[in-house]
């Protein structure tokens, strides 16, 4: 299987290693280790393979193991060491990201929008290596409001709002348009559409006012004007551009955004739609499906734990959580409104949260509890159907007859 990549791995060694129950990755590790340490006799390789296999089989989950409980404990304990509140600028590109316990809670609660939504936008090759072109993408993502395009002033005498656009900014932010006049016209049109007013434009000066002279409405117009998005995506308030080194030593520009609109961003020209991600698992779910959401939950929880130095939590626990959350084809939260709240057993639900409501509802609807699960049986004091509790032993005798053949 492994061809002749390894100098010291003979066909015999390969045969004994391949004969084990080990997964591919561990087999490769054995080959690599043998390669590093130099030639060894086949017997020794066999011993190594056997020892590794014993250890591997030993660490596998036994049948009837309460894996969920173990996962809960394994995530919960390190959770107690996490910071309660972090509002510092974390990791990448001075963008404020919720971390630690609040972030972990946000993930397992499957909140519709995270506290600090952000995206990591990768670019297609020709954009990723050229700062100018990368900036083109930045301007089509970052929402551009009037204050970053020019000065806004009010002329109370004539009841007019005057917008003096900055020519240089226009050229910079509309790199694909040659003529400043075209851009200014476009901006004037956007104002007309958004505010429902008539505008007068001369060069880069745009003027407009309320239909009836009213000081209050004039100020109202200025307020509204501030919120109008002229370019980019409304949800994205800021984009940070960073040069990063990729695996093979090449450098590429990567964009980090404050605010997220995953569906819109992957459609933009120049954005690499195969690597771009965001930290909102619901947006991932909507645009890429459950399986991608499952991956995203694992990645996000793992990163959150790792960031806090708790990277010794085995990824299998996070995978289990993620599997459960996406089991029904949508993202469900752990907890009363999600997984725990939709359990079959009344007693199990009542034991979790809002006990009285559950018992009352169950009584009103005449629910039955079949006492199949763990929690119900703990409550009624019967053996639980897990681990040794699920195994029936029967004692008896049989006559030991020597076999005839």
């Amino acid at each position, binding site marked *: 299987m492994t061809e002749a990549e390894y100098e010291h791995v003979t066909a015999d060694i390969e045969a004994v290693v391949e004969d084990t129950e080990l997964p591919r*990755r561990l087999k490769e590790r054995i080959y690599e280790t043998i390669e590093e340490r130099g030639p060894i006799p086949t017997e020794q390789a066999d011993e190594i393979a056997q020892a590794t296999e014993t250890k591997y089989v030993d660490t596998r989950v036994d049948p009837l193991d309460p894996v969920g409980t173990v996962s809960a404990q394994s995530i919960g304990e390190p959770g107690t060491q996490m910071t309660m509140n972090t509002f510092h600028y974390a990791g990448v590109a001075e963008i404020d990201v919720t971390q630690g316990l609040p972030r972990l809670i946000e993930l397992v609660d499957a909140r519709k929008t995270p506290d600090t939504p952000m995206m990591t936008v990768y670019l297609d090759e020709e954009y990723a290596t050229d700062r100018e072109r990368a900036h083109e993408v930045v301007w089509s993502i970052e929402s551009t409001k009037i204050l970053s395009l020019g000065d806004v002033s009010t002329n109370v005498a004539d009841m007019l709002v005057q917008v003096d656009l900055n020519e240089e900014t226009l050229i910079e932010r509309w790199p694909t348009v040659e003529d400043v006049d075209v851009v200014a016209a476009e901006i004037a049109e956007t104002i007309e559409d958004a505010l429902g007013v008539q505008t007068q434009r001369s060069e880069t000066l745009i003027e407009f006012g309320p239909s009836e002279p009213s000081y209050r409405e004039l100020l109202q117009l200025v307020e509204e004007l501030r919120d109008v998005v002229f370019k980019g995506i409304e949800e994205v308030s800021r984009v940070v551009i960073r040069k990063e080194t990729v695996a093979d030593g090449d450098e590429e520009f990567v964009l980090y955004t404050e605010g997220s609109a995953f569906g819109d961003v992957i459609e933009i020209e120049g954005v690499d*739609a195969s690597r771009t991600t965001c930290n909102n698992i619901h947006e991932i779910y909507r645009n*890429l*499906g459950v*399986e991608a959401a499952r*991956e995203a939950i694992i990645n996000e929880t793992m990163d959150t734990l790792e960031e806090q130095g708790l990277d010794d939590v085995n990824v299998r626990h996070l995978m289990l959580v993620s*599997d459960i959350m996406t089991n029904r084809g949508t993202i469900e939260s752990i907890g009363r409104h999600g997984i725990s709240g939709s359990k079959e057993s009344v007693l199990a639900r009542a034991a979790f949260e809002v006990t009285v409501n559950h018992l009352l509802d169950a009584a009103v609807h005449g629910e039955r509890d079949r006492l199949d699960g763990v929690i119900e049986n703990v409550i009624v004091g019967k053996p639980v159907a897990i681990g040794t509790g699920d195994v029936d032993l029967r004692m008896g005798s049989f006559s030991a007859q020597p076999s005839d053949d």
Partner: protein
Amino acid sequence: MVDVSQHELVPEHTVLDDPDRVDEVLAEYNVSKTNLPKIKSSDPALPEDAEVGDVIEIVRDSRTTEQATVYRLVVE
């Protein structure tokens, strides 16, 4: 439209259209079809020819082994 299946977070989805393979899978896990994890028929990663009631085979790049094959039932 962006081709969702090209995204690195999206594993390969294929419809198990051979009924024998479906039976094999169900026998292997000793479950009925409705016990399988679900996938919505509106899921963007679903192959176009998938219909409600189909079993989808998903081959993930696993974190713990080379590749993990899982199955999901298409539901409304």
